[in-house]
């Protein structure tokens, strides 16, 4: 029973973790809580349903399901990245040097806009994922693990691994770390800060898209409000691990997923959504810098 909840929690946690990475990367560079990040994840879920529906109508799903799924994933990631890129250019870039309240309000505006844009074009009711994967799975230490769950855990693990490599082993990753440390200095040594910020948004949105696809296929139903709640939870995960810290976001996401699934099973499922907020408040009051974060002194 406990092990079953741990597997469920790990699945959920993997999803939270890859959304949280988007928050933490943007915060690391811009010190902005990108409120609209959760909506990108919601867009990802919707786009996956739309594209897979399209492929089903074209008959591609019937001929080759894996091909249809892969194409859906690629298209969804491209579109979500485009949304992330556009969002930054339209709503945040003009406010780069504005007081800190301005971009935050702007982000809230983008979030409200995207939510209602999807609601108006796709309807307020739940949408079903065109392909059901069912309960098929395998036994692992007397626990049922569905193939989908194993897939989600595997994919999120791999994505985190590759992201880690990207950040630490490539030139671009190095430039990103430099920009996060000090934008002005980074610009002085010849890093194009604007394009680094764009890349950050593109990667973050791409990861959120993957999370959206996985959740849409896992739960089978999505609506236009999932972005807000998942966004807050992923943000909690980012804060829990130490905001601005990528391994922290991964750790925070997994912890949050585990707490939520065990809490729902053993304490109360009605308050499932409240656990994230309670953890958030407690962690901010006890150790605002998070598990892996560093405390920074405020400069006068």
């Amino acid at each position, binding site marked *: 029973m406990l092990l079953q909840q741990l597997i469920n929690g790990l699945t959920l946690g993997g999803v939270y973790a890859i959304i949280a990475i988007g928050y933490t990367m943007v915060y690391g560079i811009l010190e902005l809580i990108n409120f609209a990040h959760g909506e990108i994840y919601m867009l990802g879920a919707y786009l996956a349903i739309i594209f897979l529906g399209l492929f089903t109508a074209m008959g591609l799903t019937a001929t080759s399901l894996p091909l249809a799924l892969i194409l859906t994933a690629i298209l969804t990631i491209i579109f979500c990245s485009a949304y992330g890129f556009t969002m930054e250019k339209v709503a945040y870039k003009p406010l780069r040097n504005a007081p800190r*309240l301005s971009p935050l*309000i702007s982000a809230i*505006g983008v979030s409200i*806009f995207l939510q209602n844009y999807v609601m108006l074009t796709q309807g307020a009711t739940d949408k079903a994922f065109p392909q059901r994967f069912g309960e098929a799975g395998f036994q692992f230490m007397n626990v049922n693990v569905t193939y989908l769950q194993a897939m989600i855990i595997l994919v999120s693990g791999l994505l985190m691994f590759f992201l880690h490599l990207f950040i630490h082993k490539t030139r671009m990753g190095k430039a990103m770390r430099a920009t996060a440390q000090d934008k002005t200095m980074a610009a002085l040594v010849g890093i194009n800060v604007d394009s680094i910020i764009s890349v950050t948004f593109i990667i973050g949105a791409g990861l959120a898209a993957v999370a959206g696809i996985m959740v849409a296929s896992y739960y089978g139903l999505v609506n236009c409000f999932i972005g807000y709640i998942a966004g807050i939870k992923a943000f909690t995960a980012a804060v829990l691990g130490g905001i601005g810290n990528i391994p922290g976001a991964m750790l925070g996401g997994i912890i949050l997923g585990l707490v939520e699934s065990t809490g729902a099973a053993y304490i109360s499922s009605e308050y499932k959504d409240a656990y994230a907020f309670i953890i958030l*408040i407690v962690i901010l*009051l006890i150790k605002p810098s998070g598990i892996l974060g560093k405390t920074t002194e405020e400069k006068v």
Partner: protein
Amino acid sequence: MKPILIALLAALLFLPFKGLNAAGIMFIGVLTLLSTVSLLKKTKVIDVIKAIRIPEIGRFRTFFIPVLLISSLAFPFILKDYYIDVLIMSGIYILLALGLNIIVGFTGLLNLGFAAFYAIGAYTYAILNTKIGLGFWASLPISASLAALAGLLLAIPALRLRGDYLAIVTLGFGEIVRLVLNNWDSLTNGPNGITGISRPLLMGFSFAQLEYYYYLVFVIVIFAVVVIKRVESSRIGRAWIAIKENEIAASSMGINTTKYKLYAFTFGTFWAGIAGILFSAKMQFVSPESFTFMESILILSMIILGGIGNTHGAIIGAFILVILPEVLREVQLYRMLILGIGLVLLMIFRPQGILGGVKGVHFRS
């Protein structure tokens, strides 16, 4: 070339959601928009928008305020019930905007869960009235002080945090309150809400009729404006503004910043409690749906629209955001969509709001 690429991107983003025709319209629309914007930039219209100074209403005080007050008193005689209803709602939102303005506008503490305190005020009366039959007047101080107490209890630990973190904690608090209201069935009747709340009664006189209730709200709003304006220009108000302008400088000038921040939180949420009891007595029904995150954002939008930190601005902002959706009935569906775009545009083109914050508009983390 660049505008065409941008328009193509916009059309592409639109494609999966609305199909080819809509994407085409989007392409042409964005292209026109971009050329208009570049034209506007050439003619410096945007700079003008940013620089327009709406004269401080105070300058016309002797003329403006009496006219406004007298015409407000006359409204119930000339307007239909529907308009009275809308005016009562704007009164309630004015109270909320004034309260939030104390916290966000004066003191610079971003609060994204203000609807929680509004909910506490509303539910306190709803529960006291339906469970033990307590009247409006006896419940008014209880509602207001419970909301203020909740504000104080949240603020004591939360004020150790700065800027964005404080915003997120208040957001989390707002969600927790809503979840509790939604799930504590025995006390709050869950998602169905509480019905049969009575209108106020004063010495045998009932405010059941909408016109009378309008006057009640009117008097309370006037009272709130007077009190808040007095406090704003008092020692406490000046301390709040000093904290917003520069917290470190304020504390080195001998201001006990924690104490004054607590005052701001308690005083601001007090008005939310009063707005809450007025709301539940007016609707005679409360449910958790009225106190969502969007409600908090709506209240925040009101003070941003009016001009952060500006009491007149808060009133005007609240009034506009309540009246506008009623006027634009046909586009009701697009209300939130427009609010979202509006917030982004406001931040880019006129971050100081309509009236402009009087004493420094910037927010420090």
